[in-house]
């Protein structure tokens, strides 16, 4: 399968990040349409790659860790475009692009594009479960990005260190809202993903169920504990995504070990 679109997409994210970083370093940062254009181009190349890959394997492209990482990256880019035009031209792209570049670089360089062992037979429930779960992680990743931005902006406000970047960042109220909105989106997708797992009718190792259940309960508790305040929710959303990333890798590992599946 030709990986050129994926390589081009990775370069788009790198270029977008480099442009922003250079502008920030020179102290003359202004949100530019170039950042949005790079994100959009990267997203289009990702989509082209995933569609091609899906056709080549006749499955949803989630059959190994390589595809899971690319699909996760695509989900993050999708949420970047979904969470509102107010954030698109701000520094959100600056925080998102390096994350996408990192995920796709790991996918391209690490030996994780192994032969597809998942979906020996066609199981649409399994494909749906996998797709919804990875999209949920995409939403959680973006919530983490919004959380990092909230914490950075909040710290500047508290310490009164107001620089050029401060005026380019979205208001903390908007970041807190975006953070919550993304967490809810992720939880809804994760819930739908868990529900669709009921139709898979395959034996699943208990620790995989425990991991999945723990993630779901953790995010639910995080969202129900509104009295924590936006700062603590931002901290927890960053920590929760870091944990969920570990959980995703662990789930993939255990699934492969136990069932010869990708998830």
């Amino acid at each position: 399968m030709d990986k050129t679109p994926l390589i081009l997409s990775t370069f788009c994210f790198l270029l977008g990040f480099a442009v922003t970083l250079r502008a920030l370093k020179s102290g003359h940062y202004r949100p530019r349409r170039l950042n949005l254009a790079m994100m959009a181009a990267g997203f289009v190349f990702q989509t082209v790659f995933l569609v091609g890959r899906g056709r080549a394997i006749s499955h949803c492209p989630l059959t190994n860790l390589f595809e899971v990482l690319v699909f996760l990256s695509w989900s993050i880019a999708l949420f970047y475009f979904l969470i509102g035009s107010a954030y698109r031209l701000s520094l959100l792209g600056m925080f998102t692009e390096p994350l996408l570049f990192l995920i796709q670089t790991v996918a391209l360089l690490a030996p994780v594009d192994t032969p597809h062992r998942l979906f020996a037979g066609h199981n649409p429930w399994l494909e749906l479960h996998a797709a919804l779960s990875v999209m949920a992680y995409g939403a959680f990743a973006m919530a983490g990005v919004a959380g990092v931005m909230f914490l950075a902006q909040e710290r500047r406000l508290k310490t009164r260190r107001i620089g050029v970047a401060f005026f380019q960042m979205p208001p903390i109220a908007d970041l807190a809202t975006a953070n919550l909105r993304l967490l809810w989106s992720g939880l809804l997708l994760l819930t739908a993903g868990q529900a669709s797992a009921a139709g898979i009718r395959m034996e699943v190792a208990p620790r995989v169920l425990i991991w999945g259940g723990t993630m779901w309960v953790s995010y639910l508790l995080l969202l129900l504990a509104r009295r924590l305040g936006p700062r603590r929710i931002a901290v927890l959303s960053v920590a929760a995504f870091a944990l969920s990333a570990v959980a995703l890798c662990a789930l993939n590992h255990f699934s492969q070990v136990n069932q010869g599946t990708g998830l």
Partner: protein
Amino acid sequence: MSTTSRPHILCLGLSYQTAPVEVREHFAIPEAELPGALGTLTSMPGIAEAVIVSTCNRVEFYAAASDVPTAMCSLQRFAAERGGMVPAVPEPFFAHDGTATIEHLFRVVSGLDSMIIGETEILGQVKKAYAAAAASGSTSRNLNKFFQRAFNVAKEVRTQTSITRGPVSVGSATVDLAEKIFGRLATCHVMILGAGETSELTARALLLRGVKSVFVANRTYDRAAALAAEMGGEAIRFEECDRRYHEIDILISSTSAPHAIVTYDKIAPVMSQRPGRPLFIIDLAVPRDVEPSVNDIEGTYLYDIDSLQAIARQGIEMRRQEVSRCEQLIARHVGEFHEWLGAKRPESEAFGISVTEPTA
């Protein structure tokens, strides 16, 4: 038969940099008088096209002409007649010709020549002046192109540099910070504690950005009531304000109390009851009204007069640093426009004059 000639654009004017207000006011031209003044100006010798920019900070006459000395004499005579002075360039006037005129207008519309660097009000004022001139028929190809190019330059300067970014006063620093905390201010409630002049100005700046309501508390209730009436707000008794903190999002304090009146112990319980709803406190008083430890409470952002002034200074400095980038951008456009202006064109086209070919 048409002849060829190089058109010139010149400018005579005065601004806050060259003349005090008592001089500027003699030359100011009210909007209603502009068509008449433009008619007079374009009927004077050597002037083919004219635009008059008259604001509180500047009065400038722009003209397109083929004979610069004649046109400049006309501009001087016109200015002198307006100001009731002898027909000679008075001391406060500056005169530009050629690229200096082009550069001057590009700088003016970009806000580089303004009292507050990067302010954008001047662009609107120049646009209005140009529209008035165009409507009265005193502009043609040269000044049309000149002003339209100037507006494009101003837009480019605004979008490609940070010249309009950053607060430049305590009031604008407060408003900018409030917007970075709350986003839209339309749902914010403000309390003014102590009806001083600075707090009043700051509250007015917030009102202009659309805050929902204003409470005014003062030791003298009548003063609070008067200010509240002026601002369309609500006056409250000074003793009552502690019980109203939970209602507000922004607190502006500027009393003459000798000790802190807004303390950690008063604010902490309020904030614990409203997670996710920040409180922005602006302490303009000296000695300070608010205990510094209040800033340690989660969701509370405390700024005193020094920190606001530091932000305003930083904003001005940020804009100053952008000036050279703006100048580089302007220089490129000056060159391009000068080249366009210098291109050999038939005089009839250059000055928008309709020339009828003589018939045999």
